[in-house]
């Protein structure tokens, strides 16, 4: 659920420019790779559903840990892949900022954070499956790791940037941010377990969606044989 919930003008101008440029650079690299490498149309469809689910969940505050929201970016990364996962992070953040949930000026920083969650979750899932893990522990661990990476990145961005109007010295600010990051790790557990159940269910009914078998194999296996 890592997401910087600060208002417009909370970051100094140089930080705003820096994170916007880095975020734009990441999205440009993703678009370049998609344009060169292409993607399966099936992944685009999954990405559409992933964006819808992620956007809806993003706005719902659940009564755990005092009131938090989930992102489903780990799930999105595992299902749609790292490239589309990054684009979904951008889309969800644009729509959220348009509704007032997250500052428009922090779009670059928030996209970086959420894209990092999807990217880390995807590669962690692939690595764990490559080590012959079962689907549930692999997906739950991967999503938790991805979300944890996003939380740490969020903390680093805030500490590096500093917060306008905060009288806290950098050391105190770092401790306060560490507390926020810690809470995000707690939320990552909930989201990670939820992701594990969703991916395990999908793997049992449509293993091709999670990349466990390809589409051709699935179609052959569902054919009637005499």
């Amino acid at each position: 659920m890592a997401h910087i919930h600060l208002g417009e003008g909370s970051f100094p101008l140089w930080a705003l420019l820096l994170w916007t440029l880095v975020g734009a650079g990441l999205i440009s690299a993703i678009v370049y790779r998609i344009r060169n490498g292409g993607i399966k149309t099936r992944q685009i469809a999954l990405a559409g559903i992933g964006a819808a689910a992620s956007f809806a969940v993003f706005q719902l505050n659940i009564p755990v840990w005092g009131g938090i929201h989930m992102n489903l970016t780990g799930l999105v990364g595992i299902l749609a892949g790292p490239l589309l996962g990054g684009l979904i992070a951008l889309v969800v953040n644009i729509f959220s900022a348009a509704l007032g949930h997250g500052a428009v000026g922090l779009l670059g920083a928030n996209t970086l954070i959420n894209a990092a969650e999807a990217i880390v979750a995807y590669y962690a899932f692939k690595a764990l499956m490559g080590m012959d893990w079962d689907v549930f522990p692999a997906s739950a661990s991967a999503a938790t790791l991805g979300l944890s990476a996003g939380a740490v990145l969020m903390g680093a961005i805030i500490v590096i940037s500093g917060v306008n109007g905060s009288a806290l010295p950098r050391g105190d600010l770092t401790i306060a941010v560490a507390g926020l990051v810690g809470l995000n790790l707690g939320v990552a557990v909930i989201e990670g377990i939820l992701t594990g159940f969703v991916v395990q269910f999908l793997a049992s009914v449509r293993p091709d969606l999670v990349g466990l078998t390809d589409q051709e194999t699935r179609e052959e296996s569902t054919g009637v044989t005499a």
Partner: protein
Amino acid sequence: MQRWQQYGGLLGLIAVCFAAGLWGFTSTGGALPWAKRSAKALQRGVQEGGGALVDLGRGIVVAGPIRKGGMMLEFGGLVALLFVLGIGLYVYVDRCGGFGEEGRSAQ
């Protein structure tokens, strides 16, 4: 890898993250919604606080800026639009096997 090692690894990860979450929860003001917690912690530093980790009485609510800003209709419309587009796209791809460009896209 042995199943006990996989679940052991997952449980270890969960334990570490949960302990960090518990520390973060108490050191940043206790039972506060995220936006309020974030603003307070960044302006005033760490402040001990308590409260229930799960408060079912609070229910699931839409994020404050949307609810208080009178944007519920727009939010509902956007969610519905995204779901219709996503599911429509999925059903189309599932039945028709893509947009006829599969050959062009590299895997």
